[in-house]
C-alpha cells in the first residue's frame, strides 16, 4: 500500500503540517482501568489498555507525550448527554443488588451483554472523563492529538446500555469540542456500526458522523447506507456498509476518497476518530481482514489533515492484537517509527511466538467485490455532494409546513406499529418497553401521504415548492440498485412498495 499517493487528497487541504511534522500528543491513562472485569468469558477486557500501556512504555513512547491520569467524570458531566435516571441507575446498581432491579435492568438493557460488574460506575466515569479531558486538551490548543484508548464506547445510548457500552464517552467529548468548534467530524472504523454516536447527532448539522462497518446480520443492525440523517442533520450522516473479509487495499480504496471528500466539504474544526480494533484480522468477534498497518493507515491519514484529532479506542477482542494495534497507532500519532521486534515488556508472553508488532492479515476471502465497493463509494460521494460547504449557509429554508408530518411521527403513539410494506397499523399491545420507546424514524415509510400532495412532471420527478435551495431535485439515490442489496425482497409487491417509498424519500 502506498500511503503517499493515497494521502494526496488529504494533504491538499493542509496549509502547514505534513506527515513528517511532529504533533504535540497527549495521552490519558488510568492504571486502575485494567482491573475492571466484565466477567468470565466476556469478550471485552479493559486489561488490553494496560497491555498497550506497557508496550508504549518499553518502546519509549511515553516519554514523548504528555501523559495524564484522567479525572473521573461526574454525574452532571454524564448527564450532559445521558438521562438522569439512567445515570442514577448506573451509579447505584451493583452485582449484589441488581436482581432487585430487574425492571431497570431491562429498561436500560443492562445485565446481559452489558453486565453489572464490580466498579462499573467508576469504570464509566474513568473512561468518560478521559475522553472529555482529551477534548478539553484540544480545545485549549496546547496539543494537536489527544489519545484515550479506554474510550470509544460508541454503542451507548441516551438511556440505554448497548454492546458492552454504558456511557457514550464519544458523545460527551464531541459536546465538549462543540463549545469551541462549529463543526466536528466523527469517524468510526470499528467493525460495528457507531449507532450511539450517530443517533445522538442524527438531527444536527454541526456533527458529521461517518461509520465504516460490517452491515448485514450483524450487530447492531443499523448503519444502512440509506441512513443519512434527518431534518437539519440530513446528509450529515454517512454509513459505509461492508462485507466480510475486507482487506487493506479495499478498505483504503473506499476510506480515503470518502474521507477526503468529507474533509473538503465539511471542513470540521476537530476530528474524533474511533479506532475500534475489532476490524482487525483475527478478531474474536470481528470478520474483517485488516492488518495492523492497514488499520493504522486511517490514523495516519487523519493526522495528515493537521486538524485537532481525538483518538479513541473501541471494540477489539483479541487483546494481543488490540494492544499492538493501538501501540502502533500511538507511534503513528507521534510520527515515530517503531521496530517490528517487540521490546521485552510485562506482557511479552502474550505475543508469542512471533513477538512482532505487526498484526498480520489472513487469507480469508474478501466478500467485498470491487464493483460493490465502487457502487457504495459512488452513492456516498453522491450524498456528500448534497452538502453545502458549511452549515452556516442555510441549506434550505425549512417552511414549517414541511416539518409537520415528521414531528407528528415522533409524537405518535409508540404502541402503534407501522409496517412499511403494508402501510397499515399492526397492533401489538404488548406493553412496549425501552426498545419501543426508541421509536421509529421510518426512512422507508416516509409518507404515502406525500405522494398525493406532490405533482410529478412527465419524467416522474417530484416537483415541490418547498425547497428554495439550489439542490437538484428528485435525484433518486440509486434507489433501483439500493433496495435489493440491503433487504431481502421476497415478493414483487414488496419491491414495488419499496421502490415507491424510495422515490418519495428524496423529498424530505
Amino acid at each position: 500500500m502506498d500511503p503517499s499517493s493515497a494521502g494526496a487528497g488529504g494533504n491538499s487541504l493542509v496549509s502547514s503540517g505534513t506527515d513528517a511534522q511532529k504533533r504535540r500528543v497527549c495521552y490519558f491513562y488510568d492504571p486502575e482501568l485494567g482491573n475492571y472485569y466484565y466477567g468470565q468469558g466476556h469478550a471485552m477486557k479493559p486489561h488490553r489498555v494496560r497491555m498497550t500501556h506497557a508496550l508504549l512504555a518499553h518502546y519509549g513512547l511515553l516519554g514523548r507525550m504528555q501523559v495524564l491520569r484522567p479525572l473521573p467524570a461526574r454525574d452532571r458531566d454524564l448527564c450532559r448527554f445521558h438521562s438522569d435516571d439512567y445515570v442514577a441507575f448506573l451509579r447505584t446498581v451493583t452485582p449484589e443488588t441488581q436482581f432487585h432491579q430487574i425492571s431497570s435492568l431491562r429498561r436500560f438493557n443492562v445485565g446481559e451483554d452489558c453486565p453489572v460488574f464490580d466498579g462499573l460506575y467508576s469504570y464509566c466515569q474513568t473512561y468518560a472523563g478521559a475522553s472529555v479531558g482529551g477534548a478539553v486538551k484540544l480545545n485549549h490548543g496546547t496539543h494537536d492529538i489527544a489519545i484515550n484508548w479506554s474510550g470509544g464506547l460508541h454503542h451507548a445510548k441516551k438511556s440505554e446500555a448497548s454492546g458492552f457500552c454504558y456511557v457514550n464517552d464519544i458523545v460527551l467529548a464531541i459536546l465538549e469540542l462543540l463549545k469551541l468548534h462549529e463543526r466536528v467530524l466523527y469517524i468510526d472504523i470499528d467493525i460495528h456500526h457507531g449507532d450511539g454516536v450517530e443517533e445522538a447527532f442524527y438531527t444536527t448539522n454541526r456533527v458529521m458522523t461517518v461509520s465504516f462497518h460490517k452491515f448485514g446480520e450483524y450487530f447492531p443492525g443499523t448503519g444502512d447506507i440509506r441512513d443519512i440523517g434527518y431534518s437539519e442533520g440530513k446528509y450529515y450522516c454517512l454509513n459505509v456498509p461492508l462485507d466480510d473479509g475486507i482487506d487493506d487495499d479495499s478498505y483504503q480504496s473506499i476510506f480515503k476518497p470518502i474521507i477526503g471528500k468529507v474533509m473538503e466539504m465539511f471542513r470540521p474544526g476537530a476530528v474524533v476518530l474511533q479506532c475500534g480494533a475489532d476490524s482487525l484480522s483475527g478478531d474474536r468477534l470481528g470478520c474483517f481482514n485488516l492488518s495492523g498497518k492497514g488499520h493504522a493507515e486511517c490514523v495516519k491519514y487523519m493526522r495528515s489533515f493537521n486538524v485537532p484529532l481525538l483518538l479513541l479506542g473501541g471494540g477489539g477482542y483479541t487483546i494481543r492484537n488490540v494492544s499492538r494495534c493501538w501501540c502502533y497507532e500511538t507511534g503513528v500519532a507521534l510520527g515515530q517509527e517503531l521496530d517490528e521486534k517487540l521490546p521485552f515488556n510485562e506482557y511479552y508472553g502474550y505475543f508469542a511466538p512471533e513477538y512482532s508488532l505487526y498484526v498480520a492479515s489472513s487469507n480469508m476471502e474478501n466478500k467485498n467485490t470491487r464493483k460493490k465497493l465502487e457502487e457504495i463509494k459512488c452513492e456516498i460521494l453522491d450524498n456528500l455532494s448534497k452538502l453545502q460547504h458549511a452549515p452556516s449557509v442555510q441549506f434550505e429554508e425549512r417552511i414549517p409546513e414541511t416539518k409537520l408530518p415528521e414531528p407528528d411521527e415522533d409524537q405518535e403513539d409508540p404502541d402503534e406499529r407501522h409496517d412499511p410494506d403494508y402501510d397499515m397499523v399492526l397492533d401489538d399491545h404488548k406493553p412496549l418497553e425501552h426498545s419501543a420507546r426508541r421509536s421509529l424514524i421510518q426512512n422507508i415509510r416516509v409518507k404515502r401521504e406525500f405522494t398525493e400532495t406532490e405533482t410529478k412532471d412527465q419524467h416522474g420527478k417530484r416537483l415541490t415548492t418547498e425547497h428554495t435551495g439550489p439542490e437538484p431535485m428528485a435525484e433518486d439515490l440509486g434507489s433501483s440498485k439500493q433496495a435489493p442489496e440491503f433487504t431481502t425482497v421476497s415478493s414483487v409487491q414488496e419491491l414495488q412498495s419499496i421502490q415507491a417509498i424510495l422515490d418519495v424519500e428524496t423529498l424530505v
Partner: protein
Amino acid sequence: MDHSTAPLPNPEHSIIPSQILQVTANKPRPPSSQAQAGAAKLRARGAAATTPAAAAGRGDLAPMVGMYQQQLVDDPFPLSGGRCSDQPRQSPAPAPASASTSTSSSATVAASPLAQAHGASEPRRLFEALMGEILLPLRGAGGGNGGCGGGPGGVGDLGEVLRWTWEVAADPVAARPVAAEVRARKRQVLALRRARYLRMEDVANADELPSFFKKRKYRSHNNHAERQKGKGSMNMPTRKSERLAKRMKLMTSVLLTQRKKIGVGEHFQAEIPDWTEPSSDELTRYKNDPNISKMLGTRIWPPEGEILQTDNTVAGQGRMESCKCPYPGSFFCRQHHTDVARDQLRSELGQAFTEWRFDSMGEQVSKMWTREEQLKFNALERLVPVLDHKTFWAVASKHLASKTRIDLVRYYLNVFLMRRVLSQCRLNLLEIDSDEDEAEEEEDEDQSESTSISQRTQDVQNVKSIS
C-alpha cells in the same frame, strides 16, 4: 446436551454474556428446564415457563388452533395484550388428524398462526398473495400434499407446510425421508416467517431473554474455527421469530434483517446549542475556567517541574536480535530480559513507574502467590468447565480463601492468560487465542491428555522459576 445445572443460590455478579454464542439452536425445549443465571430470573421465568410446559405436557393441539380460529373469526384486530405469549412456543405434540381437519376446515388462512395478525382485509389479501408466491414452487410437487383446497387460491398448501412444521417442532432430530423436500420446506417456512414477522422489535417478556440458551450454545460451540461473529446478537430482546427460529435449529442469520430504525426525538438526540463564534473573551474564559480544566486530570508525565523532551531520547526501539543467554528463547531468557527492561524503565520513569502500577503487571503479580496457590488456580481453571462462568469464580474464591476477588482477577489477567498463550505456543497450536476463556476443546483425545500433562509440567516449571 442434557446437563441442566441447578441454579446457583448466590449468583456471581456477572451475567453470562451472550455475544460469543453461535446462534444455532439445538433441540427446542421448554424454557423451564434450563439452568438459570440467577434465582430471580428463575422466578420470573417460572411463571412464563409453566404454561408452555404444561401445554406441551398435555400435547393437546386443538385448543391452540381453535384459539387462532376464534380470533380471526371474531375480531380482525386481536387487541388482547400478550398475544405474543400465546404463540406456539413449545413443541406441540402433533395430532395430525385434528390438525389437518382444522386446517382444511378453515375457510381462509385462519388455521395458520402466521396469518393471525393480519385481520384487515386488504393486508390479508396482500399476505395471502405473498404466501401464494412463496408456496408456488412446491405446489403440485408431489402427491403427499394434504389436499386442503380450502381458502383463496394459492394458499391451499399452507396447511401442509404447517403440519410439516409442527412435526419438525415435535421431533426435530427425527430423520426426514426426503432431504430435498426438507430443504424446500425449510425455505418455505422461513419465507413465511418473514412474511409474518415483517417488523422489528417484538418486545416480549424480557425474562424470556435467551440467556438460557447459553449452556447449550457453548457446548455446541466448541470449535475454535467457528466463532460467534456478531457481537451482542442477543443483547436486545430478540424478535419472536428469531427466538422461535433458534429453537428450530436454524440460523437466525437466515431471517430477514429488517432495516433497523434510528431513534429521533428528545429521548435519543443530544442537545446541541446553536453555534456562535466565541469572542476572544469567551475563549479566555473557557481556558481559565477551573471546572473545565479539572477535566484534564493529573499530569503524570513529564513530572512536575520538568519539560517534555522529545529529541534526546531514543524511541521506537525493539528488542535485540540475539542475546547471550545460555538458552535463548527459553522461559528464563525471556524472564531475564524482561527484568532488565523493567529495571531500565524504572530508572527512566522514576515516580511514574509506581504511579502507573508497573509493579502489578505481568509475572510480577504471581510473586504474591505461593506455588501451591498457583497450582491450585490452574487446576481449578481446568477442572471446572470454564463454560460455567459463574461457578468458576465462586469455586476459586472458596478454595483460595486468602485471595480477594480482585486478586483472583488480577492474577488471571496478568499471569494465567499470558502463560496459557505460551503453553499454546509450545504445543504449536495453530490458533493461539489468549482470550478464549472457554476451554480449548481438543478434538484429538491424545492431544488433550498430553496437553494437560505438559501444561502441568510447564506450570510447575513456571512457578518454580519464579518463587
